[in-house]
């Protein structure tokens, strides 16, 4: 639109220890993706669309072993040089010699055979095995100028700080960099005309959420991606006209149960433990009501609404409904009864049932959730304790399935299949945080692996439906709620934000592609 004014500065908080002169996108903690560097494309999980950025199109061959990516016309680096398919091919091949940069392990996992630029605009990815999910990893790789990065020896890549960075993103001009604040301004060679509308982005460094809150309240920053306590009364109330927030659903939070151990090996016990929880109340009290309650036992939540199987949800609905009487009955039936009248149930053989729920020390919202969970369990006669552990212990516990119950999140990705890969693939046991619950089967492995072999959306959905059914039927983890996507924004200077009314993208700062879309959309009021 012509009436959009150019100019303005976006100020965002960065939680870190300060800025240093390092513009290597792979080692700078995601500061520059989508800002200094432009992705090929963005998979928008909110709309389900693919938003092409540097690329104009990307096509799979029918055998799903070749991907052909075409670049836009006349795209340039910020130093004015042309950005060609050779640059793109270089960017991908480079990560072969710098395995640490190989974000999605395309080389190390062995599936990618080659990346070649067939002409100035065309890049061809050749795969060893058919994999329709491969393409989702591409945005994780930064497109870098060969004329700069090609001069760096492979062994120096990890320590290369990329001084005077050349990029293709909307903001490539480093105005200044001070330990506590830095500013990037517009790329005059940006491939979209009049974009970005805004002139600059200012990064401000903060220690933690508790400092972002006053900064937001004082109007020092425009875009928050942080937990803010009592947001209506603190942030919104400070300036109701300009201060807004929108907390769409994010990843699903589950209570992981170690099904290899009694009494959790009994499905009814797991069901009872699920039914004992009043999820609405938990969300309301422990999390200020910000997250979205999850009544879906299929393993994925609101973030993936288009993929959720209504049938499965309906069929297993009872499991997620707050029903302490039923829960008690299930436990009674399972033989867990209070034999010694201490108010808590024992195993049929008289052993006491008492377990810890692991939660990372310092992750306070979860601690509160778990505290409430233990209260609900106490009401049905189950003794559970909150166990706050250092994350190293937590991490090890999850991976090596050294827990009885542990609160944990699910993967956030382009497609829910990635979450199921982490949940159930037998090869993930001992590696992934999500696979330690003990529910696995070769059939499910095959089912999951068959996903990549097809490009047919309907077939894929069928697989997902089956996985949801499997999850709900086995209940390796108890669904609680979907995390909120923390997102606060101020409209005093800038507008064009994604919002409930205009949900064009999931509003996460910490995703290069998503924020690229947003930055491109913001403009002066």
């Amino acid at each position: 639109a012509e009436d959009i004014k150019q100019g303005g500065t976006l100020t965002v908080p960065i939680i870190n220890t300060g800025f240093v002169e390092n513009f290597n996108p792979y080692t700078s903690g995601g500061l520059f993706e989508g800002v200094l560097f432009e992705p090929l494309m963005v998979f928008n999980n909110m709309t389900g669309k693919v938003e092409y950025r540097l690329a104009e199109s990307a096509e799979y061959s029918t055998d799903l072993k070749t991907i052909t990516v075409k670049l836009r016309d006349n795209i340039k680096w910020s130093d004015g040089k042309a950005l060609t398919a050779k640059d793109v091919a270089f960017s991908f091949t480079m990560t072969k010699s710098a395995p640490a940069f190989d974000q999605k392990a395309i080389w190390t996992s062995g599936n990618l055979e080659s990346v070649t630029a067939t002409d100035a605009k065309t890049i061809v990815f050749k795969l060893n095995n058919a994999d329709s999910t491969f393409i989702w990893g591409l945005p994780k790789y930064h497109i870098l100028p060969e004329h700069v990065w090609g001069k760096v020896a492979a062994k120096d890549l990890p320590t290369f700080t990329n001084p005077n960075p050349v990029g293709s993103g909307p903001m490539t001009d480093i105005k200044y960099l001070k330990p506590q604040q830095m500013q990037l301004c517009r790329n005059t060679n940006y491939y979209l005309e009049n974009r970005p509308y805004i002139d600059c982005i200012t990064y401000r460094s903060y220690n933690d959420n508790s400092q972002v809150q006053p900064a937001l309240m004082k109007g020092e920053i425009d875009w928050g991606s942080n937990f803010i306590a009592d947001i209506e009364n603190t942030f919104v109330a400070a300036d109701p006209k300009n201060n807004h927030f929108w907390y769409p659903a994010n990843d699903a939070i589950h209570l992981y149960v170690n099904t290899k151990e009694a009494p959790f090996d009994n499905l009814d016990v797991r069901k009872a433990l699920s039914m004992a929880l009043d999820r609405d109340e938990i969300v309301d009290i422990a999390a200020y009501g910000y997250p979205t309650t999850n009544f879906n036992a299929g393993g994925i939540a609101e973030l993936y609404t288009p993929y959720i199987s209504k049938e499965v949800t309906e069929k297993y609905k009872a499991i997620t409904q707050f029903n302490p009487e039923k829960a008690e009955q299930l436990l009674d039936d399972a033989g867990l009864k209070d034999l010694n009248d201490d108010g808590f149930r024992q195993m049929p053989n008289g052993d006491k049932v008492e377990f810890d729920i692991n939660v990372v020390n310092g992750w306070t919202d979860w601690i509160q959730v778990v505290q409430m969970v233990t209260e609900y369990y106490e009401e049905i006669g189950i003794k559970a304790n909150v166990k706050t552990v250092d994350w190293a212990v937590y991490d090890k516990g999850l991976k090596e399935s050294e827990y009885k119950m542990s609160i944990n999140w699910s993967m956030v990705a382009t497609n829910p299949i990635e979450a199921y890969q982490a949940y159930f693939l037998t090869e993930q046991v001992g590696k992934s945080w999500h696979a330690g619950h003990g529910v696995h089967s070769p059939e499910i492995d095959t089912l999951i692996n068959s996903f990549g072999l097809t490009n047919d959306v309907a077939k894929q959905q069928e697989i997902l439906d089956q996985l949801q059914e499997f999850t709900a039927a086995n209940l390796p983890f108890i669904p609680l709620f979907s995390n909120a996507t923390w997102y606060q924004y101020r409209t005093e200077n800038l507008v064009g934000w994604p919002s409930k009314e205009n949900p064009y993208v999931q509003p996460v700062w910490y995703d290069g592609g998503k924020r690229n879309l947003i930055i491109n959309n913001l403009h002066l009021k």
Partner: protein
Amino acid sequence: MSFLLRRLGFYFTAFLIAISFNFMLPRMMPGDPIDALFAAAQGKMDIAQMDAVREMYGFMDGSIFEQYIAYIQSVFTLDLGPSVLMFPIDVTTVVGMSLPWTMFLALGSLIVSLILGVTIGTYASYRREGFFGQFVPPLLAFISNFPYIVTALLLFYFFGLQLEILPLAYTYDPSIDPGFTWEFISSVAKHAVLPMGSMILVGIATWVFNMRNAMINVLGEDYVTMAEAKGLSSFRVMYRYAGRNAILPVATAIAMAIGFSFAGSIMTEVVFNYQGLGNILLKGIMARDYPLIQAILLILVSAVLTANFIADLLYVWLDPRISK
């Protein structure tokens, strides 16, 4: 002289012990930086990549002994390797960036609270029976026992957020270029008011009590009475004859206080987002950034040892009876 040599020997050994301890600490504890990185990425990182990343950060194995030798070497060559948190920036650079600010904060507040405390303490001992001597020290005892972070938060809340007369965070206004300009210096000063103020508020009581007790001990000495009998002015008696001796026990406490002052500055830096070592230390701990933690502890130990050494020198200078 032999006294100082002995002390020097002590410092060197203490230093060796401290850095060895530094070396052991991370190796005894669970978790490593890559796990931390992985946790921080919240699943956005591919597990297959972890080993590569581990290698990138230079966490190679080798016998503990080899590692130890390499570590000791790195300490003495001041080449402590890259930080994990701010990879690939050198730990030395990272620390160099924040050290001056911590020194400014910790030493500044130490010096101010020392001066104020000694003055108040001297006066309180002099007016021991009066209102001042009876009420000010207990009052300060209560203030200093208020949890430090709460004091800081309250100051932050009232002066920064409510009254908006002082900045909320940072060492200086980031839009100003550092330099010897009035603008910069005044910005630094303005940003230091709250952090330093809170540290001084909490730290002052120690010195008041230290000085007061030392003074009271000295005031009963014959040489003070003698000085009075000589008809010297009370100022001279207080400061030259009594204060000079009372400062001796306080001087040893100063060196100790450096360590505490640094500890205090950790909290301050966190609350006021001050760009100092404490802030980085805490972040470094969370990220298991061993090189950084080691470097900071190293600096800390060196600083405390240096301070002790200076205190020793000071003591020799202050107390002629020592020099032998």
